[in-house]
């Protein structure tokens, strides 16, 4: 039998950091395997939803309503994927604690990692669909350029934004179970006030500034600027979103940690 002495024992914060990373890794693995292990299509399902949305939007808006946006299918697919990451993560955030009873009741389990698991799982789904998006962009004549280097930054900003919102939602759902359903409705409505299938240019000028209260408006525009127009995203918007996301995450995490001992009793 091999023993723990085979590897030098990590101690202190270094070990805690690595353990947290390992824990997120195995939980993401678990979620992905559970999602797809017993379905015949497997990971194909990760692509079905965005592709269906793409076909519907293109058919309805392009053909039926004759929307005049150049490269409409790339335009819609970018919106669908970016907003999809946000929507699918947050629609699950409510149930994070209430559906993980077996983990919550493990001594020493760091609950604070749970939101990251969901956001990572959904990011993985986004990554699976990216090749299709790239092919679509290529097919419509768009080529990668220097501004593409900003993509990792956009992923980080959006990650902070989603995780920052996931913490308060997960906490709230423990004491108020209707949260999950209300969030579902709000996310659905948010899709219509985010330029997924239309452009902000179609919105009357007086209303346009109100749209920017929705952080996903700026987010989707940054992605499109890079992918479709091959230009750097507006630094002001990126900085604003980054500050907003980081603040949300910091405060949301604080509240979550201070409340976490109460979660167990409410379950």
């Amino acid at each position, binding site marked *: 039998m091999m023993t*723990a002495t085979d590897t030098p024992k990590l101690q202190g914060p270094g070990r805690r950091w690595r353990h947290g990373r390992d824990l997120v890794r195995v939980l993401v693995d678990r979620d992905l395997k*559970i999602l797809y292990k017993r379905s015949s299509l497997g990971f194909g399902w990760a692509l079905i939803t965005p592709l269906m949305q793409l076909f519907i939007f293109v058919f309805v808006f392009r053909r039926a309503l004759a929307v005049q946006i150049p490269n409409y299918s790339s335009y819609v697919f970018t919106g669908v994927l970016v907003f999809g990451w946000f929507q699918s993560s947050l629609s699950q955030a409510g149930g994070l604690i209430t559906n993980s009873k077996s983990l919550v009741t493990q001594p*020493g389990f760091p609950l604070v990692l749970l939101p990251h698991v969901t956001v990572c799982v959904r990011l993985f789904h986004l990554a699976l669909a990216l090749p299709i998006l790239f092919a679509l962009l290529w097919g419509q004549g768009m080529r990668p350029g220097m501004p593409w280097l900003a993509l990792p930054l956009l992923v980080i900003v959006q990650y902070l934004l989603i995780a920052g919102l996931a913490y308060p939602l997960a906490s709230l759902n423990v004491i108020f179970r209707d949260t999950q359903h209300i969030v579902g409705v709000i996310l659905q409505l948010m899709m219509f006030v985010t330029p997924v299938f239309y452009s902000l240019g179609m919105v009357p000028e007086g209303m346009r500034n109100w749209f920017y209260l929705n952080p996903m408006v700026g987010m989707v525009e940054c992605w499109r600027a890079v992918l479709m127009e091959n230009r750097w995203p507006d630094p002001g918007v990126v900085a604003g979103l980054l500050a907003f996301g980081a603040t949300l995450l910091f405060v949301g995490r604080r509240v979550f940690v201070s409340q976490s*001992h109460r979660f167990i009793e409410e379950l």
Partner: protein
Amino acid sequence: MIKPRVRAEGVCKSFRRKSAKGGWRALSAGVFSRSREAPLWALREVSFEVAPGQMLGIVGANGAGKSTLLRLLGGIGRPTTGTVRVEGRIGALLELGGSFQGDLSGRDNAMLAGVVAGLLRSEVRERMAAIIEFAELEDFIDAPVRTYSTGMAMRLAFAVAVHTDPEVMLVDEHLAVGDLAFQAKCAARIAALRAEGCAIVLVSHGMDQVKNLCDRALWLRHGEMVLCDSAAVVAEAYQEEMREESLRRTPEAPMKTTPEGTVLRARENRIGSLEMEITSVVLRPGPRIASGAPLELEIAYHAPVPIGAPVFVVSISSKDGAVCMDTNTQAGNVTLPDLFGRGSIRLTLERLDLGAGAYFVDVGVFASTWSHAYDYHWHAYHLNVEGLAGHKGLLAPPCSWMLGDVPAPGGCERVGAAVSMG
């Protein structure tokens, strides 16, 4: 003085009564933390310590707060007042394979459980072979856990838990699951962990288990400590309490005669709440057997209401009160299902090597937590053992005499002339 690994001081825990309504009322109660209803006290003023290498048993009826206490020790929730201090890494078996995912393989689940318990992925990988070997699941480890039997899942959970180098182990009644060989292995592993200084807290219903395994025991009743002392003292007091509780619950029932002609009088040779009755006890081949012959007991019962997992007890004692044998379904590793209606249970003794004489067979059925007896027939059934004249004492196993030479120093192998008696 050695620093205790686990220390609880004046631990109290109250729960707010859950409002069945939920919704907005629950939200406002949660936000404003105001609750007009009196809190429910699950634990009151519980204090104890567990030193490295010590094993503490927690006993008490259902709802006495045992599991709540164990969870508080595991840092799941905080005590309302008082403090809980646990030093070192906690290994826990609180729920049977609680975090297992049926669709994942045993290997994936072992990795998951190991990392959740605090190991790094690389550490679990190093120990995987040992875990699989301990769980005896070499042939099934890549099959989904949903295809496992309860025993297999339990073995895997236990194997992972003991391979996480715990410094404190919290166990909720798991040792009673699994076959005897695996239980022996678990007991050996627990002894090894204790030798390395691991402190163990075990919640148990089985008094024998507590007496055999634990150094000390803590008895909880309605969240309060009744007694915290050596395991033997607590077990004795707990059993005494059970006798009193059974007597208190015994109704004024009319005299009854079993089909075999035994007369049962409540509070005289029969105690118990009679929620479930033993209707007849038949000894086979009969109440008169030869020494060393097999004996079979058939106990017929009647449960007018469903009874959750009761425990049947059989003991044989001599006329002067010496207990020759005392066994029960729990000790025999038989977990009974919920019983309802009429039925019977049989105990087979392959051979009964009792000396010639008259004995009593006491038969009873108890609540699963041993809190009280449903029905207990004391000295109601007679057993006569017939044997060879000249043997005295309670035991009469097959025996033979042999005459030998002067024993060689340091050895006892040499055998000389044999004189056999029989």
